[in-house]
């Protein structure tokens, strides 16, 4: 069995809202993320995804219950540094992550803080900026970049830290189709070949089907959890929760309703194509 990397136990989080009182954004979350797992978190707007993700690097501390990262309790201050070293976080809003007036300095910020030698930082940043296609912008000002370019910069900075675990909060929301596909390929490569644990928050169901496991949040609770092939059979429940099927599954579902029997492991357009090839060409 694989090691547990993140373990949340009865995790509850309450936001204080001045004189409006408190708001319970998470209640009684029990969740483990295993080392080397690719976990996707989905759920409607306001369901608690970002609040949960921010517990994974200790940015938020539970109001009740507990959470450990690599066995370390996130509430004790002495663990903070080590947890931030292990868990790299890409936040939902790229503007909140800009810390420097130069793209290459900005991308280097996290890696530098790890105390790496400057040549190593330089090498890594050059590599990750190239990976996201921002090399021509290395000397530009981050706040003048386009929306998608800012998002790519945030990703490059976190990748340069080479974290053991990546937590990404809607990192592809402003990327073009090619950029979205490239990031998913990068994440899958890091996960499969480098054993990086990946937690991805997304509204793209096409991304969710690529995960080992999908967790569906609703009103601060876990409504569903399981492999994509299981989760996406719960069509009515997903619709109730503000979600939808990815296109390949919509088509497969429609065909089943017309009386065709299709294999249950069709999740992506490529799967659907392979099935059609099988039946129609052979």
């Amino acid at each position: 069995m694989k090691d547990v990397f993140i373990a949340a136990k009865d995790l509850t989080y309450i936001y204080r809202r001045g004189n409006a009182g408190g708001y319970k954004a998470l209640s009684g979350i029990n969740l483990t993320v295993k080392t080397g797992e690719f976990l996707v978190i989905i759920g409607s707007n306001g369901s608690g995804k970002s609040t949960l993700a921010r517990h994974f690097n200790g940015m938020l501390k539970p109001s009740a219950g507990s959470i450990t990262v690599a066995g370390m309790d996130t509430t004790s201050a002495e663990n903070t540094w080590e947890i931030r070293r292990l868990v790299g976080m890409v936040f939902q809003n790229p503007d909140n992550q800009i810390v420097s007036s130069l793209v290459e300095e900005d991308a280097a910020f996290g890696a530098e803080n790890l105390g790496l030698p400057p040549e190593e930082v330089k090498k890594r940043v050059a590599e990750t900026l190239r990976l996201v296609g921002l090399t021509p912008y290395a000397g530009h000002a981050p706040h003048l970049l386009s929306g998608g370019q800012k998002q790519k910069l945030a990703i490059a900075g976190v990748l340069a830290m080479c974290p053991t675990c990546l937590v990404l909060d809607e990192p592809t929301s402003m990327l073009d189709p090619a950029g979205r596909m490239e990031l998913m390929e990068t994440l899958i490569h890091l996960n499969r070949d480098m054993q990086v644990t990946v937690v991805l928050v997304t509204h793209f169901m096409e991304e969710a089907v690529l995960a080992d496991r999908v967790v569906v949040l609703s009103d601060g609770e876990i409504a569903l959890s399981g492999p994509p092939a299981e989760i996406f059979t719960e069509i009515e429940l997903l619709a109730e929760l503000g979600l939808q099927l990815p296109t390949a599954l919509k088509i497969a579902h429609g065909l089943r309703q017309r009386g065709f029997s299709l294999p249950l492991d069709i999740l992506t357009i490529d799967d659907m194509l392979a099935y059609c090839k099988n039946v129609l060409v052979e």
Partner: protein
Amino acid sequence: MLGGAFLTMSAIIEIDRLTHIYSPGTPFQIAALDSISLDIKKGVFLAIIGSTGSGKSTLIRHFNGLLRPTSGKVRVCGIDTADKKQRRNLWRSVGLVFQQPEQQLFEETVLADVAFGPRNMGLAEAEVKERAHEALRLVGINPQEAARMSPFHLSGGMRRKAAIAGVLALKPQVLILDEPTAGLDPQGKQQLMQHVENFRRREDATIILVTHDMEEVALLAEQVAVLNQGRLVMVGPPREIFSRVEELMAIGLDLPAAARLMHQLRLLGKRIRPGVLTADEAEEVIAGLLEEALC
């Protein structure tokens, strides 16, 4: 002569050889728009697509005079956007939802934020309230709750919705949305776009939508403009644009998922009618193929 007059009457936005250069004369000079010409007809639903950094946000910022052409001309509702004296008239007609509009929320409550624009237009208080409530309902936020909530207490997607409501409440003749559904959940996305389409029909408004979501384009757009590195490289209806598969792929774009599947089936030698863009249409096509194969 007559043709010319007719054209200017039906085009609500006229773009004539628009070029925009950021930081000219510095080492960071960027030609973000390169001699773009395009007429946008009144009442149309136009989608603007293009890869990251291709110039989409730069282009639409010219439509409400936020940016001035380096060269070329932009006229909106007959107003030259470079004419400072006409600014207020321009802003009255054109509503722009920025990319990441949530950065612009500043009032104490969500409701006050949405009411800010209409109030600023000098509307009567009853009308202001009615418009704010209506706009909030359109984006799926309860107006009663909005009256109690600070915008800073909202999640990312909810903040986005509140910001969009603020522009919808202005009921602009030209509604420009820069990636409005980025960060919305699938149903929120669909509902918002449906409301935008209803708004267009009801008010005979012109909609300009910047998006990376090809499904959205397929479902709603009547016309699509494709940008690449600051140049306008294609204009046409979605079915035509999405038939130019290789060209789109080469510039970082894609087809809607259903259309991609159809394209790949064609590569396998299957004969499939052109213009299939949605899951429902693809389901029908595949059902036909399966029936044929299984008989």
